[in-house]
């Protein structure tokens, strides 16, 4: 599967890692919804490290869509919340 880290590019990961990423992803959502900024920061860092660590960077000229998309490392809890809402920050 392909994962995008916003502001950094895309990584290709073996599907076998999906369960672990999913677990962290659920944790991230929980922290976002409960407003736990420190936990959110920690989990996001862990997720990003995991993706960069086990993934293969996709070349810049690849035109493949990503299955999963992660916020950039310096994204705040509020920004991510905003992006996931209907009037999100994502242009287009």
């Amino acid at each position, binding site marked *: 599967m392909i994962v*995008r880290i916003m502001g950094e590019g895309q990584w290709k990961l073996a599907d076998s890692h999906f369960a672990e990423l999913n677990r962290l*992803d659920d*944790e991230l959502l929980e922290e976002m919804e409960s407003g736990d900024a420190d936990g959110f920061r920690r989990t996001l860092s862990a*997720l990003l490290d995991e993706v960069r660590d086990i993934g293969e960077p996709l070349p810049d000229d690849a*035109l493949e*869509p990503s299955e999963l998309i992660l916020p950039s490392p310096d994204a705040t809890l509020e920004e991510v919340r905003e992006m996931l809402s209907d009037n999100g920050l*994502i*242009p287009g």
Partner: protein
Amino acid sequence: MSGVMKRMGMIFRAKANKALDRAEDPRETLDYSYQKQLELLQKVRRGVADVATSRKRLELQLNQLQGQSSKLEDQGRKALALGREDLAREALSRRAALQQQVSDLEVQHQTLQGEEEKLTLAAQRLQAKVDAFRTKKETIKATYTAAQAQTRIAESFSGISEEMSDVGVAIQRAEDKTAQLQARAGAIDELLASGALDDQSGLAKDDIQAELDRLSGGTDVELELQRMKAELAGGPSASKQAIEGGTATPQDQQQQSSQPRFDKQ
């Protein structure tokens, strides 16, 4: 309940699909999208240029503040040499306030540099994808009928539109940060212009300098008098002692005068 990554992916895809429904003939959509990509590339390049402009302005201000700061340090030293501890204290406390500004600005400067770097890389990534898209677009238009093209277009389209959304967010964030910094830089410009800091024009002399000049002027007269008195008395010149503000022993003077001089012409 899906996590953040999955939701974000769905949102991006929904945006891409919405963009696809624009034209009757999907091949027109290709051209339309390509135009949009080029526009976005322009915007990213302008963004990089704006960040660079802000960065340079900050650098200019940093230089001014640092110049002012070392000037105050010199003034402090001079005031102390003239025995005016109160004046030295004033100069040094102003310098401390300036140093605070300087370190704040240095942090901002680093932020901007990071932003500039990220945007430059984002522009490179987008450029590579736009080039790939153009090639693919021409292939699709040449090879498939409008009906067949639909799926091909959808494939290449979601990849590029995702990149565009990502870069769009990056540009937005860079613009916000730059605007904040511009406002701050404006405040510092006002501070520099109001004479609270040296305006670098050299026209407006600050009060510490005025006082120091007055003191040095007085000192020069004093020194002159001392020298004349010494000459009249036929004794050794006392001027060196007065200038250096220390008490030079005859032994010191002996050593200094016996040292050879290597003045470069």
